[in-house]
């Protein structure tokens, strides 16, 4: 569309900004309720939302179902955890460098390392398509999971505790509220980035090839390199989210990389609505609340909640975001036009 005026809500940026603004009220709510748990939950929502919005570049826009998101998430977490461990134990990581608990350094590193892992996984996985792609990314997820289990030095199966206080530009970041706003800023950055990417020429290629690869090739675009870059960006942002999780709970373990967690990310993204930047935020919130309900007094909600999620994913191919479309009487999309 030449003008943004008639762009449907699904593709709009502002709902994501509204959601982020609402999330920004969580610390105030937490103080008002005198319940520190509130901001902890909000932090978790924000962190998983980063992973889910990032996954949407691959899943929603490029149309590739990856089951490796949790592994990249974990890689990022381990980068932060391992570097902090080395500093705490005064043991060189490499060439005399003693590690770091400075997030201004370790967060970008987590982003980079996870991105490199994703590029390597993507380079192999993207040679296949459809169900094979799902299976191969799943296999890589398990490989990295067992890789983490094998890290005996860093806790192996039990996970890695971060014992030294983490800093951001030298300032202690262990304060819950400060940390929440750090994570929220990262979510905002992720949303703005994915939105820009989706609308750029790069995003046009991803979206076109997701639906009709034959057409993309016919006009002169081989989608492979674009998909690889999208996959790497998605993995890098997952690494950033995982790094934030490790920092927020001062702990990272192989459990954060389990394959079903990768499935959870797909559910979060699909639940909220693929190919939107705001759907996955809602999906992440819904998921975290479900997770709570599974582990606490709301146990009798488990089945109904599961059924609701199943119904949404099965009935609304566009996720919750499609409800908005339906309410506005917009036509639903989906299948390729082949007459």
């Amino acid at each position: 569309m030449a003008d943004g005026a008639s762009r449907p809500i699904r593709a709009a940026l502002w709902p994501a900004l509204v959601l982020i603004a609402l999330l920004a009220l969580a610390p105030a709510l937490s103080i008002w309720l005198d319940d520190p748990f509130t901001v902890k939950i909000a932090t978790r929502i924000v962190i998983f939302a980063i992973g889910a919005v990032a996954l949407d570049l691959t899943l929603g826009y490029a149309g590739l179902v990856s089951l490796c998101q949790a592994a990249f998430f974990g890689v990022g977490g381990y980068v932060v955890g391992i570097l902090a461990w080395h500093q705490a134990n005064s043991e060189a990581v490499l060439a005399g460098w003693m590690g770091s608990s400075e997030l201004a350094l370790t967060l970008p590193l987590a982003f980079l390392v996870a991105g490199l892992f994703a590029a390597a996984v993507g380079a192999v996985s993207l040679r296949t398509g459809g169900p094979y792609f799902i299976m191969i990314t799943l296999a890589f997820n398990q490989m990295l999971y067992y890789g983490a289990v094998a890290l005996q030095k860093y806790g192996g199966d039990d996970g890695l505790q971060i014992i030294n206080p983490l800093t951001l530009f030298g300032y202690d970041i262990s304060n819950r509220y400060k940390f929440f706003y750090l994570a929220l800023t990262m979510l905002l950055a992720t949303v703005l980035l994915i939105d820009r990417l989706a609308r750029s020429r790069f995003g046009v290629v991803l979206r076109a090839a997701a639906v009709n690869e034959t057409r993309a090739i016919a006009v002169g675009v081989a989608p492979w390199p674009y998909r690889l870059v999208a996959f790497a960006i998605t993995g890098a942002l997952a690494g950033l989210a995982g790094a934030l999780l490790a920092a927020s709970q001062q702990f990272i373990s192989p459990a954060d990389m389990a394959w079903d967690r990768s499935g959870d990310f797909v559910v979060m993204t699909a639940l909220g609505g693929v190919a939107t930047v705001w759907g996955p935020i809602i999906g992440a919130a819904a998921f975290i609340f479900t997770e709570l309900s599974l582990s606490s007094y709301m146990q009798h909600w488990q089945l109904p909640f599961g059924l609701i999620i199943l119904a949404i994913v099965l009935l609304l191919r566009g996720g919750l975001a499609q409800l908005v479309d339906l309410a506005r009487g917009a036509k639903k999309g989906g299948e390729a036009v082949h007459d």
Partner: protein
Amino acid sequence: MTDVLEVRNLYKRYGGLVATNGVNLSVRPGEMHAIIGPNGAGKTTLISQLQGMVRPDAGEIFIDGVNVTATPAHQRAGLGVARSFQIASLIPDFSVLDHAAFAVQAQLGHSFRFWRRADREEILLAPAREAVEAAGLGARMHSPARDLSHGERRQLELAIALAQRPKILLLDEPMAGMGKQDGQRMTQRLADLKGRYSMLLIEHDMAAVFSLADRLSVLVSGAIIKTGTADEIRNDPQVRAAYLGHG
């Protein structure tokens, strides 16, 4: 002057079926060369080999004198080969203009451009609008493909091919399934494009083909049995027996 397209001894077999059987063919600069032939003669298979989607078993294909037989399809598009699909191959969520702009974008080098909004890049939109107008779809510029009628989808196929700024247009039955009126409009459009593009046109509509084409080739069971002007084809006894007699 070198031919824009030259095909030498092309063969393609599907199991026991010979879909392309020793085809020799050329399209001269600015020429409209039509291919006629009964259903299943191998017309679409031929186009797919020229575009690169289908690999021939033997033979050679030249674009502007360059051997592209081993060149992948997306690179052939970069060399100026554009094809329209007999069965429209579109992106339901993309508007008419989006499709054409995507084709323009593909011609402008790589798409590793991450920041600027593609739907506001006049460098993409201006040529895209022009191609859409040339295909007669100007009134539907912002409609998503899924809302288009059958005839409009055929027009969009043409618009995309034009937006590629091709050296050679491979058009696979651009008026297939269109009503009489739409078909006549499309014929007029192709007549307008004649001379500006080198074209290989596949078409069932005899009246349209005989009025449009500079030369025609008759394809039967994968082989070209005759190439010539409209008059030569019309009066050829072999062609009449093999094809026109049935049609």
